[in-house]
Protein backbone atom coordinates (compact mmCIF):
# COMPACT_ATOMS: atom_id res chain seq x y z
CA UNK A 1 0.00 0.00 0.00
CA UNK A 2 1.23 3.46 -0.81
CA UNK A 3 1.55 5.37 2.44
CA UNK A 4 3.15 8.49 1.04
CA UNK A 5 0.56 11.17 0.46
CA UNK A 6 0.44 12.83 -2.94
CA UNK A 7 0.97 16.50 -2.33
CA UNK A 8 -1.46 18.03 -4.71
CA UNK A 9 -4.83 17.37 -6.23
CA UNK A 10 -3.21 17.36 -9.68
CA UNK A 11 -0.87 14.57 -8.63
CA UNK A 12 -3.75 12.52 -7.25
CA UNK A 13 -5.58 13.01 -10.55
CA UNK A 14 -2.53 12.04 -12.59
CA UNK A 15 -1.48 9.04 -10.52
CA UNK A 16 -4.87 7.59 -9.59
CA UNK A 17 -7.17 8.97 -12.29
CA UNK A 18 -7.13 5.91 -14.51
CA UNK A 19 -7.54 3.55 -11.55
CA UNK A 20 -10.50 5.53 -10.25
CA UNK A 21 -12.03 5.54 -13.72
CA UNK A 22 -11.68 1.77 -14.08
CA UNK A 23 -13.17 1.20 -10.63
CA UNK A 24 -16.01 3.59 -11.49
CA UNK A 25 -16.60 2.00 -14.88
CA UNK A 26 -16.81 -1.52 -13.47
CA UNK A 27 -19.18 -0.32 -10.75
CA UNK A 28 -21.50 1.62 -13.06
CA UNK A 29 -21.06 -0.22 -16.36
CA UNK A 30 -20.92 2.83 -18.58
CA UNK A 31 -18.53 5.59 -19.50
CA UNK A 32 -20.77 8.58 -18.77
CA UNK A 33 -21.59 7.56 -15.22
CA UNK A 34 -17.99 6.54 -14.63
CA UNK A 35 -16.77 9.93 -15.87
CA UNK A 36 -19.25 11.75 -13.63
CA UNK A 37 -18.10 9.66 -10.70
CA UNK A 38 -14.45 10.40 -11.40
CA UNK A 39 -15.19 14.14 -11.47
CA UNK A 40 -17.11 13.89 -8.20
CA UNK A 41 -14.34 11.88 -6.54
CA UNK A 42 -11.65 14.33 -7.60
CA UNK A 43 -13.78 17.19 -6.33
CA UNK A 44 -14.09 15.47 -2.96
CA UNK A 45 -10.36 14.70 -2.93
CA UNK A 46 -9.62 18.34 -3.66
CA UNK A 47 -11.79 19.45 -0.76
CA UNK A 48 -10.59 16.70 1.54
CA UNK A 49 -6.83 16.95 0.99
CA UNK A 50 -6.59 20.01 3.23
CA UNK A 51 -7.91 18.07 6.21
CA UNK A 52 -6.35 14.72 5.29
CA UNK A 53 -4.72 12.99 8.26
CA UNK A 54 -1.61 10.96 7.41
CA UNK A 55 -2.47 7.28 7.27
CA UNK A 56 -3.57 4.92 4.55
CA UNK A 57 -3.96 7.25 1.61
CA UNK A 58 -5.42 4.58 -0.65
CA UNK A 59 -7.88 3.51 2.04
CA UNK A 60 -8.98 7.15 2.23
CA UNK A 61 -9.13 7.54 -1.54
CA UNK A 62 -11.17 4.39 -2.16
CA UNK A 63 -13.49 5.22 0.72
CA UNK A 64 -14.21 8.55 -0.96
CA UNK A 65 -14.76 6.78 -4.27
CA UNK A 66 -17.19 4.17 -3.01
CA UNK A 67 -19.03 6.76 -0.89
CA UNK A 68 -19.46 8.95 -3.97
CA UNK A 69 -20.78 5.93 -5.84
CA UNK A 70 -23.22 5.01 -3.05
CA UNK A 71 -24.44 8.60 -2.83
CA UNK A 72 -25.13 8.48 -6.55
CA UNK A 73 -26.97 5.17 -6.22
CA UNK A 74 -29.15 6.64 -3.43
CA UNK A 75 -29.83 9.74 -5.52
CA UNK A 76 -30.89 7.59 -8.47
CA UNK A 77 -33.15 5.52 -6.25
CA UNK A 78 -34.96 8.67 -5.14
CA UNK A 79 -35.47 9.81 -8.73
CA UNK A 80 -38.07 8.34 -11.10
CA UNK A 81 -36.51 5.28 -12.63
CA UNK A 82 -34.78 5.80 -15.92
CA UNK A 83 -33.09 2.94 -17.73
CA UNK A 84 -29.33 2.93 -17.49
CA UNK A 85 -27.77 3.83 -20.80
CA UNK A 86 -26.39 0.92 -22.73
CA UNK A 87 -22.76 1.71 -23.22
CA UNK A 88 -22.21 -0.69 -26.10
CA UNK A 89 -25.18 0.60 -28.09
CA UNK A 90 -24.25 4.20 -27.53
CA UNK A 91 -20.59 3.81 -28.30
CA UNK A 92 -19.75 5.67 -31.46
CA UNK A 93 -17.75 3.06 -33.29
CA UNK A 94 -17.14 5.21 -36.32
CA UNK A 95 -15.85 8.21 -34.39
CA UNK A 96 -12.16 7.30 -34.46
CA UNK A 97 -9.80 4.35 -34.60
CA UNK A 98 -9.13 4.70 -30.89
CA UNK A 99 -12.87 4.65 -30.17
CA UNK A 100 -13.11 1.46 -32.20
CA UNK A 101 -10.27 -0.10 -30.25
CA UNK A 102 -11.88 0.97 -26.99
CA UNK A 103 -15.18 -0.55 -28.13
CA UNK A 104 -13.41 -3.85 -28.69
CA UNK A 105 -11.82 -3.64 -25.28
CA UNK A 106 -15.19 -3.08 -23.63
CA UNK A 107 -17.05 -5.84 -25.47
CA UNK A 108 -14.21 -8.25 -24.73
CA UNK A 109 -15.38 -8.52 -21.13
CA UNK A 110 -19.00 -7.71 -21.79
CA UNK A 111 -20.51 -10.80 -20.21
CA UNK A 112 -18.34 -10.40 -17.13
CA UNK A 113 -19.31 -6.72 -16.88
CA UNK A 114 -23.00 -7.59 -17.12
CA UNK A 115 -22.60 -10.22 -14.43
CA UNK A 116 -20.84 -7.68 -12.19
CA UNK A 117 -23.73 -5.24 -12.56
CA UNK A 118 -26.16 -7.94 -11.42
CA UNK A 119 -24.34 -8.29 -8.10
CA UNK A 120 -25.64 -6.54 -5.00
CA UNK A 121 -23.63 -3.35 -4.53
CA UNK A 122 -21.71 -4.51 -1.46
CA UNK A 123 -20.54 -7.68 -3.23
CA UNK A 124 -19.80 -5.80 -6.44
CA UNK A 125 -17.59 -3.20 -4.80
CA UNK A 126 -15.69 -5.83 -2.80
CA UNK A 127 -14.99 -7.97 -5.88
CA UNK A 128 -13.97 -4.97 -7.99
CA UNK A 129 -11.73 -3.52 -5.31
CA UNK A 130 -10.06 -6.91 -5.02
CA UNK A 131 -9.84 -8.07 -8.63
CA UNK A 132 -9.82 -4.83 -10.65
CA UNK A 133 -8.17 -2.33 -8.33
CA UNK A 134 -5.97 -4.96 -6.69
CA UNK A 135 -6.41 -4.06 -3.04
CA UNK A 136 -5.73 -6.47 -0.19
CA UNK A 137 -8.55 -7.54 2.11
CA UNK A 138 -7.18 -5.21 4.78
CA UNK A 139 -7.23 -2.26 2.37
CA UNK A 140 -10.74 -3.10 1.25
CA UNK A 141 -11.84 -3.31 4.87
CA UNK A 142 -10.50 0.22 5.43
CA UNK A 143 -12.15 1.55 2.30
CA UNK A 144 -15.52 -0.01 3.00
CA UNK A 145 -15.32 0.37 6.80
CA UNK A 146 -16.18 -3.24 7.64
CA UNK A 147 -14.15 -6.02 9.31
CA UNK A 148 -11.75 -8.08 7.19
CA UNK A 149 -13.93 -11.14 7.78
CA UNK A 150 -16.86 -9.36 6.16
CA UNK A 151 -14.70 -8.48 3.15
CA UNK A 152 -13.70 -12.13 2.79
CA UNK A 153 -17.30 -13.23 2.96
CA UNK A 154 -18.49 -10.61 0.45
CA UNK A 155 -15.80 -11.44 -2.08
CA UNK A 156 -16.55 -15.14 -1.82
CA UNK A 157 -20.31 -14.71 -2.11
CA UNK A 158 -19.84 -12.24 -4.94
CA UNK A 159 -17.74 -14.72 -6.89
CA UNK A 160 -20.25 -17.49 -6.34
CA UNK A 161 -22.99 -15.26 -7.74
CA UNK A 162 -20.77 -14.38 -10.69
CA UNK A 163 -20.23 -18.06 -11.35
CA UNK A 164 -23.99 -18.58 -11.48
CA UNK A 165 -24.40 -15.68 -13.90
CA UNK A 166 -21.57 -16.77 -16.16
CA UNK A 167 -22.45 -20.45 -16.47
Amino acid at each position, binding site marked *: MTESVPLTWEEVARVYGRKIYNFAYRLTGNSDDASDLVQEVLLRVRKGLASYQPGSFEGWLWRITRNAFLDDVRRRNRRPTAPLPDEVDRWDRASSPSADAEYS*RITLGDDVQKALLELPVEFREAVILCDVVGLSYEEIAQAVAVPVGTVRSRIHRGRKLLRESLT
Partner: protein
Amino acid sequence: MTHAGELISAYLDGELPRSEVEQLFRHLSSCGRCSAEMQDLQAVRSAVRSLPLLELPPGLIPEADAELIPLHRNRGFLVGAAAAVVALVIAVAAIFTPSTAAISVEELNSRYGARASLDPAFGPAKVVVPQLTDVLE
Protein backbone atom coordinates in the same frame (compact mmCIF):
# COMPACT_ATOMS: atom_id res chain seq x y z
CA MET B 1 -14.54 -28.69 8.42
CA THR B 2 -17.96 -29.11 6.78
CA HIS B 3 -17.04 -27.38 3.52
CA ALA B 4 -14.27 -24.98 2.64
CA GLY B 5 -16.55 -22.05 1.76
CA GLU B 6 -14.87 -18.66 1.83
CA LEU B 7 -11.50 -20.19 2.68
CA ILE B 8 -11.33 -20.94 -1.04
CA SER B 9 -11.54 -17.30 -2.13
CA ALA B 10 -9.18 -16.24 0.64
CA TYR B 11 -6.68 -18.86 -0.53
CA LEU B 12 -6.98 -17.75 -4.16
CA ASP B 13 -6.28 -14.16 -3.07
CA GLY B 14 -3.28 -15.15 -0.95
CA GLU B 15 -5.14 -14.03 2.16
CA LEU B 16 -5.28 -17.36 3.99
CA PRO B 17 -2.82 -17.99 6.86
CA ARG B 18 -0.48 -20.94 6.29
CA SER B 19 -2.11 -23.01 9.00
CA GLU B 20 -5.48 -22.67 7.32
CA VAL B 21 -4.00 -23.44 3.89
CA GLU B 22 -2.92 -26.86 5.18
CA GLN B 23 -6.36 -27.39 6.66
CA LEU B 24 -7.97 -26.37 3.35
CA PHE B 25 -5.88 -28.77 1.29
CA ARG B 26 -6.56 -31.64 3.66
CA HIS B 27 -10.24 -30.98 3.10
CA LEU B 28 -9.95 -30.60 -0.68
CA SER B 29 -8.21 -33.95 -0.96
CA SER B 30 -11.36 -35.64 0.28
CA CYS B 31 -14.13 -33.31 -0.97
CA GLY B 32 -14.95 -33.30 -4.66
CA ARG B 33 -17.54 -30.57 -4.27
CA CYS B 34 -15.06 -28.11 -2.76
CA SER B 35 -12.39 -29.07 -5.30
CA ALA B 36 -14.83 -28.26 -8.10
CA GLU B 37 -15.78 -25.02 -6.39
CA MET B 38 -12.11 -24.07 -6.14
CA GLN B 39 -11.72 -24.55 -9.91
CA ASP B 40 -14.89 -22.59 -10.68
CA LEU B 41 -14.01 -19.66 -8.44
CA GLN B 42 -10.49 -19.57 -9.80
CA ALA B 43 -11.97 -19.24 -13.29
CA VAL B 44 -14.34 -16.48 -12.15
CA ARG B 45 -11.53 -14.62 -10.43
CA SER B 46 -9.38 -14.86 -13.56
CA ALA B 47 -12.26 -13.62 -15.73
CA VAL B 48 -12.72 -10.48 -13.62
CA ARG B 49 -8.99 -9.89 -13.43
CA SER B 50 -8.78 -10.24 -17.21
CA LEU B 51 -11.19 -7.37 -17.80
CA PRO B 52 -9.34 -4.88 -19.98
CA LEU B 53 -7.88 -1.86 -18.26
CA LEU B 54 -9.72 1.03 -19.88
CA GLU B 55 -8.14 4.26 -21.00
CA LEU B 56 -9.40 7.51 -19.53
CA PRO B 57 -11.75 9.33 -21.89
CA PRO B 58 -9.70 12.12 -23.48
CA GLY B 59 -10.04 15.38 -21.61
CA LEU B 60 -11.65 13.87 -18.53
CA ILE B 61 -8.55 14.44 -16.46
CA PRO B 62 -6.19 16.75 -18.33
CA GLU B 63 -3.57 16.14 -15.64
CA ALA B 64 -3.51 12.47 -16.61
CA ASP B 65 -3.47 12.96 -20.40
CA ALA B 66 0.21 13.77 -20.45
CA GLU B 67 3.09 14.24 -18.14
CA LEU B 68 2.60 17.86 -17.27
CA ILE B 69 4.97 20.33 -15.76
CA PRO B 70 3.66 20.98 -12.24
CA LEU B 71 0.84 23.41 -12.79
CA HIS B 72 1.22 25.54 -9.72
CA ARG B 73 4.87 26.35 -10.14
CA ASN B 74 6.08 26.56 -13.73
CA ARG B 75 3.04 27.12 -15.87
CA GLY B 76 3.06 30.87 -15.28
CA PHE B 77 6.67 31.04 -16.38
CA LEU B 78 6.00 29.00 -19.51
CA VAL B 79 2.97 31.03 -20.50
CA GLY B 80 4.99 34.21 -20.04
CA ALA B 81 7.86 32.82 -22.09
CA ALA B 82 5.53 31.73 -24.90
CA ALA B 83 3.88 35.13 -24.94
CA ALA B 84 7.27 36.81 -25.09
CA VAL B 85 8.30 34.68 -28.09
CA VAL B 86 5.06 35.49 -29.91
CA ALA B 87 5.45 39.19 -29.17
CA LEU B 88 9.04 39.09 -30.44
CA VAL B 89 8.02 37.42 -33.72
CA ILE B 90 5.27 39.95 -34.28
CA ALA B 91 7.60 42.81 -33.40
CA VAL B 92 10.23 41.61 -35.89
CA ALA B 93 7.53 41.23 -38.55
CA ALA B 94 6.32 44.73 -37.82
CA ILE B 95 9.82 46.18 -38.09
CA PHE B 96 10.37 44.64 -41.53
CA THR B 97 6.95 45.66 -42.78
CA PRO B 98 6.54 48.97 -44.65
CA SER B 99 5.02 51.65 -42.53
CA THR B 100 1.75 51.60 -44.46
CA ALA B 101 -0.31 49.15 -42.43
CA ALA B 102 -2.90 48.41 -45.14
CA ILE B 103 -1.96 46.30 -48.18
CA SER B 104 -4.26 45.87 -51.15
CA VAL B 105 -5.09 42.49 -52.67
CA GLU B 106 -3.46 43.59 -55.92
CA GLU B 107 -0.26 44.40 -54.10
CA LEU B 108 -0.31 41.05 -52.28
CA ASN B 109 -0.85 39.26 -55.60
CA SER B 110 1.97 41.04 -57.29
CA ARG B 111 4.34 40.65 -54.38
CA TYR B 112 3.69 36.99 -53.45
CA GLY B 113 1.72 35.61 -56.36
CA ALA B 114 -1.02 34.86 -53.87
CA ARG B 115 -4.59 34.46 -55.02
CA ALA B 116 -6.86 36.46 -52.76
CA SER B 117 -10.27 35.80 -54.19
CA LEU B 118 -12.67 38.08 -52.36
CA ASP B 119 -16.07 39.44 -53.18
CA PRO B 120 -15.44 42.61 -55.23
CA ALA B 121 -18.67 44.03 -53.86
CA PHE B 122 -16.81 44.76 -50.65
CA GLY B 123 -14.02 46.61 -52.42
CA PRO B 124 -10.35 45.82 -52.24
CA ALA B 125 -9.42 43.63 -49.32
CA LYS B 126 -7.17 45.05 -46.69
CA VAL B 127 -4.78 43.01 -44.61
CA VAL B 128 -4.01 44.88 -41.44
CA VAL B 129 -0.62 44.22 -39.96
CA PRO B 130 -0.61 44.95 -36.23
CA GLN B 131 1.83 47.56 -35.14
CA LEU B 132 4.29 46.94 -32.38
CA THR B 133 2.61 49.46 -30.12
CA ASP B 134 -0.75 47.69 -30.58
CA VAL B 135 0.70 44.34 -29.59
CA LEU B 136 2.43 45.57 -26.51
CA GLU B 137 -0.51 47.54 -25.16
